[in-house]
């Protein structure tokens, strides 16, 4: 528990750092979202209207400290401001609309990738010297492939050439969102390729990480002992070796979530998935800093929460942490 309290403290500190960073970055950087907007709206806006708009977007000239306090205050009330791109939609609304898609897609895909990757890693370590070693070079290769390239390749093969899967959007044009089976089926069908992308691109890390730890674990005395005890291979492999090997992998998995989220941003963009990644890019392109800040904050907090969950899992899985701290 002490361990968790300590971690919680750390996460709070990190969250504060993320929030502050979030506040500072757009203010330390040059650029003016309104000018951009006008530039993009070629001719639809008279330049004379800029000032009024600036006011509407809540761009303030107050001193930095005051702005920071206001920002924290708003945040405490859950207000993230209004998006500039989607003015006057609240950033929180934009996020609320897009987050479920990302959480669903990335969450499920990551879970799948973690399960498959970990199992494969365990198996590969266990069956060293067999044909399974052949997966290794493939995994090495996949480990270094950019997410978006995988996405592009999948689109090319399964979307454009074979036309098995839809290559964009989150559900079909002919269904309306609702709690219907039709809608659910459409969502799953549309999520197939992006999910496969994330699974493929992030699985290699899990395989390699798990394999390495597992190989080391397999050399430990307690595994040899378990084998000597005449336990079944399955039991030795999972209850003794994998169970221990997973521990160091939990933390690295949690930390790698940041990368997965990053990668899925790219994936979402390729697949026009209406998730948080597409929104982030939109925000960046438009220098829509309320939106960017909001999204970055949400992503950071999500990763923090995931890390905290991983810590929890660690505590549950590793009796040693329950007593001593770290």
């Amino acid at each position: 528990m002490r361990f968790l309290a300590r971690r919680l403290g750390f996460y709070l500190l990190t969250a504060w750092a993320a929030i502050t960073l979030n506040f500072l970055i757009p203010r330390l950087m040059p650029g003016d979202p309104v000018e951009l907007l006008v530039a993009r709206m070629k001719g639809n806006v008279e330049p004379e209207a800029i000032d009024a708009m600036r006011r509407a977007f809540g761009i303030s000239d107050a001193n930095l400290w005051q702005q920071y306090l206001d920002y924290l205050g708003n945040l405490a009330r859950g207000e993230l401001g209004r998006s500039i791109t989607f003015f006057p939609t609240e950033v929180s609304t934009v996020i609320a609309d897009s987050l479920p898609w990302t959480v669903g897609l990335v969450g499920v895909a990551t879970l799948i990738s973690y399960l498959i990757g970990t199992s494969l890693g365990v198996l590969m370590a266990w069956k060293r010297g067999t044909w399974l070693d052949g997966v290794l070079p493939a995994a090495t290769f996949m480990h270094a492939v950019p997410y978006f390239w995988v996405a592009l390749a999948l689109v090319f093969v399964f979307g454009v050439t074979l036309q098995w899967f839809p290559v964009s959007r989150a559900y079909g044009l002919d269904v309306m969102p609702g709690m219907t089976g039709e809608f659910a089926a459409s969502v799953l069908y549309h999520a197939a390729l992006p999910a496969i992308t994330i699974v493929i691109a992030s699985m290699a890390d899990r395989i390699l990480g798990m394999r390495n730890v597992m190989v080391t674990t397999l050399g430990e005395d307690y595994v040899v002992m378990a084998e000597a005890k005449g336990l079944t291979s399955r039991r030795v492999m999972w209850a003794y070796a994998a169970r221990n090997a997973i521990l160091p992998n939990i933390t690295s998995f949690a930390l790698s979530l940041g990368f997965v989220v990053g990668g899925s941003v790219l994936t979402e963009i390729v697949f026009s998935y209406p998730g948080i990644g597409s929104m982030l890019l939109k925000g960046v392109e438009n220098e829509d800093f309320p939106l960017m800040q909001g999204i970055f904050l949400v992503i950071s907090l999500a990763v923090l929460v995931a890390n905290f969950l991983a810590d929890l899992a660690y505590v549950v899985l590793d009796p040693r942490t329950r007593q001593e701290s770290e």
Partner: protein
Amino acid sequence: MNVLEIRDLGVDYLSQTGAVHAVADVSLDLRRGEILGLAGESGSGKSTLANAVARLLRPPAAITSGSVVYHRQDGTAVDVLALKRDELRAFRWKELAVVFQSAMNSLNPVSTVGAQIDDVLRIHAPKMSRQDRAERAVELLQRVGISADRRRSYPHELSGGMRQRAAIAIALALNPEVIIMDEPTTALDVVVQRDILHEIRALREEYGFAVVFITHDLSLLMEISDRIAIMYAGRVVETGTAEALHRAPRHPYTLGLLRSFPRLHGPREELLGIPGTPPDLRSLPPGCAFHPRCGRAMEECSTRLPLLTRGTDGPDGADGADGADGADGEVACLLNGGRGVEEAS
């Protein structure tokens, strides 16, 4: 009489720079109910031998020759090296159990001691009820001096001595005929070590299993074992009863080892030690591997590989082996009238 017979066992570690002959032509008998001590310097192949017998070798280790035969109580002989997977699983722990050097490392850190005993019972005695298994676990732990409530403790919550005891309790779970103990007390204090040695002896009296006790501490072996085998560079160079070895070591290496230990009691003896360093197993000196360090080496020693035989003389010639004790022992040394073979290469 013999519960385990090892014949001409050879084990190599294969590597790119050539095979390491970690165990070469080892023949040993383990008698029912005895404690056989196995001593030798670090790297002499003790653990490798033990693991080979328990079929625990992993690549790159490979058994290159020999056989290991286990005799059941009912007289049937089992070729250990030829056991199939299922047979092997049954053989392990029911017939032969292992206790490793460091109990911290040989207990699964994420499950309780009780669960680790339970694990064995569940696999090997599937008919036992959960209740019975729990009772048995408590009984075993109490037998080695751990209170019943420690059943729910994780290994890290136990002290070193308790862990070692727990490991022994696990080994006892199925009343095996043979327990191999690979340096079970090296990591412990002398006082705790002493306690555990007592425990082992007492348990042996009670259950009647045979023990292969591996350590590099010869004086410890002399106290606990019935018979002792000394290994050097992958070969057994001398065997004999503890007493005979203590009184009249016949191989110069055994003598050297004995004379390397300072004694606590009695007069201060001069310590001899052994000059030089242990050989590289990849390129052993020809002939007797010990000859470069042997003060009494002869010409022949560098060309002829001595075989393990019942020798007649101790290295000092004068001491001689007397009667029954000596007759029981074997030595691989040309000085002892031992026969040798001409080195092939």
